């Protein structure tokens, strides 16, 4: 009978669950590193769900680092291996994942997840268990006011300062060239919001009037009415806090509405390389400003090697920013481990990082006491289908600065 067989099935599941729970309870956690085998680095990433785009890219960065490191003899003479869990962009899961990695799996080291929303709870687990937590994606300021001692953000600055150089440059333009009005649409996100707020603070202090400022929810797909409102406000410049998709859609919407401001800045979205180019169309990328932690043109140590290995592993594609950030995080970890000479004392690793700086493919990174980085983001602009760096001048890969959709500024 269907009934009793279903019942049998369920009873079996219940029994198995009880047994499983019992076994799990009594199994002590695996002891960390036995000195000979590979060094295991644990991480949880959003490979599915809302943040899956960035999560997958970050994982690629980790993989490239692993390939290069192992080819060069490994870390402290031992091969490295990753243990990666998918947290599905869910906080409960990321907590369980890191607990599992540190506890049950007994990994030697951990690296962070992608997105502040996941990394805030994840870093708490690491801090509680005394593990060093190097984070490729922790732009939110809230991460650093909790008194944690072992957290480090492996990019040049927190979100609020990302657009600083751009805003300062605009503010420094002579009055007849500087735009009089600006619009600030932003994604409702702890990453994107602060970027725009930081820029607005600098620009409005310099006399650029804010004629539109609003926040749109994360799942907004249709930007036509938002763009209509921005257009009607008469803004000469648009500074958008975006993530990826929303940046693409906003731009396409601007075309439909026939709205073409002189200056367009989008955070994050334009850093997605070919995905952005295809999503928007090349002539639309021309002149779009963005802030980036990374550019493939940079002459930073290890960058050529990174790009070559990435192309080799991933079908000749250009590495996106999140992959580079992941790679840099691993580089920071590597530097600390090699300097201290062992993986057993996480406190020593943290202390070394507080006292020193590390050269990565993003440039030289160094940190404040609370783990937030000291430094400035790069400001880039798409020119001729290539993402160039335009600020700061000393690392710029291009001399000109264009207006959106072509023409000198």
């Amino acid at each position, binding site marked *: 009978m269907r009934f009793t067989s279903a019942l049998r099935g369920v009873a079996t599941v219940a029994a198995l669950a009880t047994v499983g729970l019992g076994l799990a309870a009594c199994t002590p956690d695996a002891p960390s590193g036995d000195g000979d085998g590979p060094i295991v680095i644990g991480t949880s990433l959003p490979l599915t769900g809302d943040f899956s785009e960035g999560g997958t890219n970050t994982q690629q960065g980790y993989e490239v680092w692993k390939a290069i490191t192992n080819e060069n003899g490994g870390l402290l003479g031992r091969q490295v291996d990753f243990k990666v869990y998918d947290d599905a962009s869910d906080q409960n899961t990321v907590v369980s*994942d890191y607990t599992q990695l540190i506890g049950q799996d007994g990994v030697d080291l951990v690296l962070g997840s992608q997105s502040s929303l996941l990394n*805030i709870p994840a870093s*708490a687990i690491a801090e*509680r268990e005394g593990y060093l937590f190097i984070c490729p994606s922790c732009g939110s300021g809230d991460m650093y006011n909790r008194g944690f001692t072992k957290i480090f953000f492996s990019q040049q600055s927190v979100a609020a300062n990302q657009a600083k150089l751009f805003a300062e440059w605009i503010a420094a333009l002579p009055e007849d060239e500087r735009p009089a009005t600006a619009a600030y649409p932003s994604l*409702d996100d702890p990453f994107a919001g602060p970027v725009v707020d930081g820029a607005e603070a600098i620009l409005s202090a310099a006399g650029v009037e804010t004629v539109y400022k609003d926040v749109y929810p994360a799942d907004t797909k249709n930007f036509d009415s938002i763009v209509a409102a921005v257009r009607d406000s008469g803004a000469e410049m648009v500074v958008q806090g975006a993530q990826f998709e929303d940046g693409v859609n906003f731009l396409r919407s601007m075309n439909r509405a026939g709205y073409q401001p002189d200056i367009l800045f989008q955070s994050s979205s334009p850093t997605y390389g070919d995905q952005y180019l295809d999503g928007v169309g090349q002539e639309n990328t021309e002149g779009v400003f963005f802030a980036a932690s990374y550019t493939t043109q940079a002459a930073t140590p290890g960058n050529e090697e990174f790009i070559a290995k990435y192309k080799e592993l991933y079908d000749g594609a250009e590495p996106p920013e999140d992959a580079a950030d992941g790679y840099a995080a691993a580089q920071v970890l590597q530097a600390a481990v090699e300097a201290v000479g062992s993986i057993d004392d996480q406190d020593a690793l943290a202390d070394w990082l507080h006292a020193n700086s590390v050269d990565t493919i993003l440039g030289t990174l160094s940190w404040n006491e609370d783990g937030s980085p000291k430094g400035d983001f790069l400001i880039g602009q798409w020119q001729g289908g290539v993402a160039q760096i335009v600020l700061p001048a000393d690392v710029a890969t291009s001399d000109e600065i264009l207006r959106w959709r072509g023409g000198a500024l």
Partner: protein
Amino acid sequence: MSGPAPAAAPDWRGRLTDPVLWRWITRALVLVAAVVLVLFPLSPSISAQNTVILALVFAISASGLNIITGYAGYLSLSQGAFLGIGAYTGAILARANPGVSPFVWAPVAGVVAAVVAALLGLVTYRSRGPSFVIITIAFTLLVQFVARQWTGLTNGSSGITLPLPDWPREWGNWPFHLVLVALLALSLLLSWWIRRTKFGTGLIAIREDEGKAGTIGINAPVYKLLAFGLSALLTGMAGSVYGYYLTFVDPSGMFAILLSVQIVLSVILGGRGTLFGPVLGAFIIQPLNSWANTIGGGGNVRLVLFGGLLVLLVLLLPSGILPSLQALLERIRTRGTVGLSGARLGAVGESPAVTTPRERPAVAAAPLLEVRGLAKSFGGNRAVDDCSFTVPEGSITALIGPNGSGKTTVFNLVSGTMTPDRGEILLGGEAIERLSPWSRAHRGIGRTFQITRLFKEMTVLENVVAPLRDFSPGQLGLGAVSGAEARRAEELLAFVGMSAYRDARAGSLSYGQQKLVELAQVLVLEPRLILLDEPAGGINPTLIERMGELIRELNRQGTTFLLVEHNMPFVLGLCDPIRVLARGAVIAEGGPEQIQHDPLVLDAYLGDDFLLEGESKTGAVPTVKGGRA
């Protein structure tokens, strides 16, 4: 009075499935589980500890949800929202008061969640079934929206971070664990206590048949409000501990619909309406969740697993694990035995002691019930059309008429099941046509149904305990299975002769037996007026006679009756006066003598060749053959 036939000597099957044995087995299992649970942090595996802590949070939420979804039968997908509200309350207060342990705020979080839940219950008092579910979904998403927008309070999408626990590292997870275990214990205690009171039986009555529950005095909207509030109380507290454990609360994490789905899944898997079912369910679902992530391979596997589990549950095991096990045991135990319905009825017992004895009015009584110009249409169909009649106090009045004449509709209008388009209904001079069914029940109207509407899943005794004479907190808290209420119910059961069936499931009774129990239910209300819808319909002659006896006995003590009936000998032998209804209006009234000879009545209903042989209520009748008198 003979009871059921003695059972065969218990065989091995009977012994193995003996309820008493299983009660002890259950107690032992629960005890072992409790000990393991309390001492769990001794486990050397911190990821197992993590799973158990999360499972505890879900178990508390599931146990709370059981009150509104399990007992009252209202599927709510907003339980996750209350968990989140608790978490946010705790986080906001913790941030505003650094230096105070976040645990202190748990009771406050619980109260806030309970108040919000009660408000939601208030707003949805008229919603049932699909509407209710949709509203709870909308509510969860709306709360998420508010959390995102009200940045002043909640810090918007960025969320609120909490400090790391301030106790020594060696204590590990003990504080979280013990607080949650204590909350779980409280939650189970609350659930157990509710089940044992009239409030609990009332909730189950609402689940089984909300309309019927109204007619026995159960004020469904208020019950729902209370149930909702109670369901969220401990959940909110668990939420604040949960937020503290994660050290971070934010809108997308705390108010995801999937969280509510997980909690509902736990309740249904374990068995809704049972005490331990939701807990069992939570402790199966949460490890499954973790397992799907780590070993199964990630987000998509988890979705397919949860979705598949949900689908399979609904299709194959909708009642859940514990009730199915119970049912299975019951079937094994009773295989080959004869059900109770074969037993003979007891004799009509002593009339029940009435707490407010009524005097039988000596003279021609004032009407107890007056119906004036009542009208009710359904679309183009005028079911009741300018109907007016009175029911004298202390009488047994009959309402007869052909099918489709509107008799049941009139009953529905009087008992409050429907509201009239026009007209007035006066009970003892008071206009009641705008009152709710339960208010009318509290004023002394009781009513039975043509197709009996007992609460099938409850026992006969519980069915008779369920009605509420008047609404007060004291009444709600009265014990349902023991105490004064139960004794009274037993008296009434004895009166109608159904004592032997006290503990039988009401759904297993025969039609006639159900009618008797329904009558006993109505008597709990100590009604002034009882509406009987075809009391003699569909039952054997012995039972018909018993019905007549019971009606007469109650009438002697002062209860007024209004019957709808087709069995003419029964009516003519019992009732005076008689009202005849046709096409929604009264066409004749008078004593049995007049009615039998009234040409309108003969034309519309009785037919030219109607013969009455034997006694009618008003004396011997010359048999009339054909034609007019």
